[in-house]
């Protein structure tokens, strides 16, 4: 038990993993996760990128040994969640999408009580709680009620709480959704520090910049399936040109007809036209040569958003 039998350093392995939700009292069953394969190695930061409803959170709950697997195989820390749920959960840290802090307890009590669920001795938890409050920058809030915390503070407390058992793997479901930019950057910095300390991170996000900042490797999910996987750089290089030219027009239809031949590929969005080209400035010059006058023109490096658009024809955040 607990051996990484799937190969050296493989902490999570999913083969043909499926999750089917059958509504109670009849109704059509929906396949939230439709057969996915992935492996997560020790020390890695592994991301699930995709829009809402892609099956990311469902996958996370199965890995967390909270939601039963409907099909395929899943090994977490070399164990089967079906038979070794408590043993797996003992070595995981879990940060759910909505903060589920115990609002009846103070900030410090949240850590002290949570540690007891793992059967840790009180003295050890007390010491650990002090370190974690420091890590989460909540030392001066230690004796406040959870209600008194801002959204960013709550999220940091949830992360601190998930670290109380010194987990091998930290699961983060949409860790920065709903936070303001400053709070997001502080959180990223904390997560980066954890990664440097050797904690394996598994996270879901629908933010490109988050995936690019934090993930060593990621899979792109859509409709319960994996549509691409690799490193952030590799995915961009493999599915996109180096740069993107974003154009806005008064009459997009008319303009699009005249510049159809430009760039490697084009993508029409309701409010703008994207021209994929290795050299965006060159493409812009070519646009001007056709006599078309865009309202605005922006050249930028392509990112994971573009990868997703290329793969699915849709944007990530509607």
């Amino acid at each position, binding site marked *: 038990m607990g051996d990484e039998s799937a190969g050296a350093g493989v902490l999570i392995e999913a083969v043909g993993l499926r999750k089917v939700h059958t509504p109670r009292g009849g109704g059509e069953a929906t396949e939230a996760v439709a057969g996915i394969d992935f492996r997560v190695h020790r020390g890695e930061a592994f991301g699930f990128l995709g829009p809402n409803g892609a099956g990311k959170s469902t996958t996370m709950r199965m890995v967390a040994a909270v939601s039963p697997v409907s099909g395929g195989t899943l090994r977490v820390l070399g164990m089967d969640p079906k038979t070794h749920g*408590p043993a797996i959960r003992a070595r995981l840290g879990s940060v759910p999408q909505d903060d589920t802090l115990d609002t009846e307890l103070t900030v410090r009590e949240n850590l002290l009580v*949570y540690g007891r669920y793992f059967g840790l001795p009180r003295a050890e938890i007390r010491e650990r709680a002090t370190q974690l409050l420091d890590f989460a920058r909540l030392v001066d809030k230690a004796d406040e009620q959870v209600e008194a915390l801002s959204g960013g503070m709550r999220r940091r407390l949830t992360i601190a*709480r998930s670290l109380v058992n010194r987990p091998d793997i930290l699961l983060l479901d949409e860790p920065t959704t709903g936070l303001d930019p400053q709070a997001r950057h502080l959180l990223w910095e904390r997560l980066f520090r954890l990664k440097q300390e050797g904690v394996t991170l598994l996270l879901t996000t629908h933010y490109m910049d988050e995936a690019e900042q934090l993930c060593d490797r990621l899979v792109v999910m859509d409709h319960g399936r994996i549509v691409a996987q690799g490193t952030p750089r590799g995915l961009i290089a493999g599915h996109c040109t180096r740069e993107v030219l974003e154009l806005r027009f008064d009459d997009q239809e008319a303009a699009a007809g005249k510049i159809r031949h430009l760039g490697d590929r084009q993508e029409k969005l309701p409010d703008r036209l994207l021209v994929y080209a290795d050299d965006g400035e060159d493409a812009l010059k070519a646009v001007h040569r056709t006599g078309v006058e865009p309202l605005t023109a922006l050249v930028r490096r392509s990112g994971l958003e573009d990868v997703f658009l290329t793969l699915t024809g849709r944007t990530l955040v509607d």
Partner: protein
Amino acid sequence: MLRALWRSPAVAGPAALVERNLVIYRHTWYLLLAEVFEPVLYLLSMGVGIGALVGHVPGLGGGDPSVGYVDFVAPALLATAAMNGAMNETTFNIYGKLKMLHTYDSILATPLRIRDVALGEVAWALLRGTAVTVVFGAAVAAFGLLHSPWAVLILPGSLLIAFAFAAAGLAVVTYIRSWQDFQLVQLVMLPMFLFATTFYPLGVYARPVQIAVECLPLYQSIELVREPSLGVMNAGVGLAALYLLVFGALSMALALHRLERTLVP
């Protein structure tokens, strides 16, 4: 050996949950006094007030004339206090934790399982129910209303009552869809409180009604503590204990089954 048992997951899991509730209760312990206050008010108004009119209840305490109406009512109020203390905890409080606070979502991400949560909550409710009974029981004893050494059986008796109703409450709460549904619970609990021989003996009913009342869990709970406190020990007490044990165990099984459906995503 005891230490090893205490540390085994089967005990440590529920114990961790009890500990959580204790940490919260440190801030709100005075609520316990409020719960004792209610039966004390009933004891004063019904027992002392109406007792002055009623005088003696015929056929009580083996015809002992020192046993008055208040002695008859006090044990019933004690059983009711144990019932309410336990059931309030597993209905109102757990509903809040299930539906509003989502307390269990984060707990079930730890090694704890649903049965640890269920057992822990029932154990806690049992502790609370018992605490209410002990404080109220002390008040009853101080009034000089306990007539027999058998009255020591009140303590294990109220533990059993608290267990049965804590488990029943846990089963009930899984069916509750909104705060309005608690009215339906009251619709059962209030008549049971009024008619389960709390304020008068079973003998006032016609036989078919007697049988219906005898099936009520509160009637059996009252039997369990009233008889010993009046010094009457008979088979009925053992039967009441057995009834509550079975009632509690069945409720617990139903509660576990229902919680698995509610809490597993």
